[in-house]
């Protein structure tokens, strides 16, 4: 950049010592530099949190992003007033309708009651007396004519299990257990 050339910050730099002495003292200091974990260089923090993410168990939902202190810049009383609202929602439960193809009536379950997909699927299996197949990302549910699906916020029909659990319960509007040939289209391999 043109600016950099025009500009010689070293000349104007305030420093102790006679003009002409180089940055020897700095070099000496750097060899004895101790890198503390708490050093607040932003890039280093980001790298370490990314590494931590990768170590996480693939089965469970990826951890929510390490929250940066004071970001986004919102006053605590605002955060608190939003959070109180959220906990109220939590105590009220997150009920969604569950339908199963061929069943005479629907059921309702509280998604908040379950910690993850395995528990949810087990509860559905018990409720409707069926068994889902084995889930894999590539093939969906393998080994059963029943496939658990859900309708998300955008109204799209999605396969249960693809997205992290937290994201799922926040976007799931209703559940539908599909059966038979219709289910095959969604990646059910019988």
């Amino acid at each position: 950049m043109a600016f950099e050339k025009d500009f010689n910050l070293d000349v104007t730099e305030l420093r102790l010592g006679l003009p002409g002495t180089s940055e020897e003292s700095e070099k000496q200091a750097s060899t004895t530099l101790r890198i503390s974990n708490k050093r607040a260089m932003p890039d280093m923090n980001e790298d370490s949190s990314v590494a931590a993410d990768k170590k996480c168990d693939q089965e469970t939902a990826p951890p929510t992003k390490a929250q940066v202190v004071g970001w986004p810049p919102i006053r605590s009383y605002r955060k608190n007033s939003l959070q109180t609202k959220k906990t109220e929602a939590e105590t009220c439960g997150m009920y969604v309708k569950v339908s199963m193809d061929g069943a005479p009536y629907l059921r309702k379950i509280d998604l908040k009651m379950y910690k993850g997909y395995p528990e949810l699927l087990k509860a559905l299996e018990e409720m409707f007396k069926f068994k889902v197949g084995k889930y894999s990302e590539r093939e969906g549910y393998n080994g059963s004519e029943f496939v658990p699906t859900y309708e998300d916020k955008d109204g799209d029909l999605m396969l249960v299990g693809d997205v992290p659990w937290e994201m799922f319960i926040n976007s799931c509007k209703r559940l539908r257990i599909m059966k038979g040939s219709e289910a095959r289209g969604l990646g059910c391999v019988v």
Partner: protein
Amino acid sequence: MHKKTAFSFPDEVLEHVFSFIQSDKDRNSVSMVCKSWYEIERWCRRKVFVGNCYAVSPRMVIKRFPEIRSIELKGKPHFADFNLVPDGWGGYVFPWIVEMAGAVPWLEEIKLKRMVVTDESLELIAKSFKNFKALVLSSCEGFSTDGLAAIAASCKNLKELDLRDCDVDDLSGHLLSHFPDTYTSLVSLNISCLGSDEVSFSTLERLVCRCTNLRTLRLNRAVPLDKIANILRRAPQLVDFGTGTYAADLRPDSYSDLAGAFSSCKELRSLSGFWDVVPDYLPAIYPVCSKLTSLNLSYATIQSPELIKLVSHCPNLQRLLVLDYIEDSGLEVLASSCKNLQELRVFPSDPFGVEPNVSLTEQGLVAVSSGCPKLQSVLYFCRRMSNEALVTVAKNCPNFTRFRLCIIEPRTADYQTLEPLDVGFGAIVQYCKDLQRLSLSGLLTDRVFEYIGTYAKKLEMLSVAFAGDSDLGLHHVLSGCESLRKLEIRDCPFGDKALLANAAKLETMRSLWMSSCAVSFRACKLLGQKMPRLNVEVIDERGPPDSRPESCPVDKLYIYRTVAGSRFDMPPFVWTMEDDPSLQLS
């Protein structure tokens, strides 16, 4: 022998003339004309504003202005709002109250922002100032309802008690019951930040009834909706009203009661509160909407359709605070309905969510910029932005004085081109020639700072986070922004060079905050040694900075100009870099 010239008016005449000069800047200019004007002015100055309580000592202020009636003080750095300043940092008001209690017994008004106020301070205020009229505490902490009770009980002439966003220790309040039965002078009461403490409604109603000059009343969340109607009926002269919880079981009689109460308030121009809103009760405020100039819905968790309906009823709105539930569609309606809009603040409803929960994008901002020609002040939280949008906004709104954009994810690029947002913000500073305050976000290189240094000549306050590539960025700002008073930076790769090269600039500013940057302890020491009129304070919770190599970056740095020398009330995690006259460079 002194020769009287034609310009030598008697002091009383000059004093009378000066009494029409209210602005601090003008008063300061007047005092610099000549020695006699300095003298006359200082004896008749009634209001003092101290932007940094550590820039000057209370004794100095009172010595120069012995007849003040009003003082305004600011304490902690702005980033304290976002928990970047550890507890115990400072900003104590008590020493000021002690000095003034003795020397300025006729003090009437105290306004404090980001200061630590204790019950002891409040009790001292209540005891010392017989004609005390106004207490405005903004983002303050350290006191309880006991201290406030002392004010209520003792200050017979109190007109204003305004607690804005304070952190108050709620000790079973009954604050209002401490106002004597004979007390009637209340004009403005803001208790919106008091916790879920029970308010005695009968006490409140009686207070409102007997204070016939009441113009501003902002209640706290604890006041339920069914109590509002009674209060409004007793104070139809209200201009500014803040509800408590705006939720109740929907009953036709309580709804019509409320609507009737609102319609009796012909002077109402500003509404706020609206916690836990039940949408069905919102139309109760429609009777007053056409005259509303200010509406704060930033706690109202209602969705876009309700917000749209509400906003369409308020053609005279000048100021709107709202959550991003309003969405782009709502902002488009705002743009077409509210042609007098001057200030808009859009807050995030789900600031920590990874996925956007609402459809609020740069489009909403563009729409408002296009439809509202008087728009001057914007605070906008969103999840995506483009240079194109920013350029459009800049061209639409050359009159911006405050522009604060927060793209929630740090370092987010232009979503269309994946480029940095340098050009977009560059357009803002180029077109908005009167811009006084700017907050940046998104992916930004040194280039944006080049634009800012080149064009933002009226900029007084700049907030920077996760931006820039090198010291050159900081250098552009410090060397180019002639009007800069406050600069706050976090998580940027700015180090020693630009800071040291622009040391003199720092004396022309109120303060500089840098946290999680790359300024070494060595540079801090140098700066402290070279610049005796600056306090260079290192904040580091890892322990003393000299327990690490000199080249190690400090955690947080706060530099401010002062005539009071180093402060005495520093906590263990703050070190001041002492000036050392023996180390002057040749």
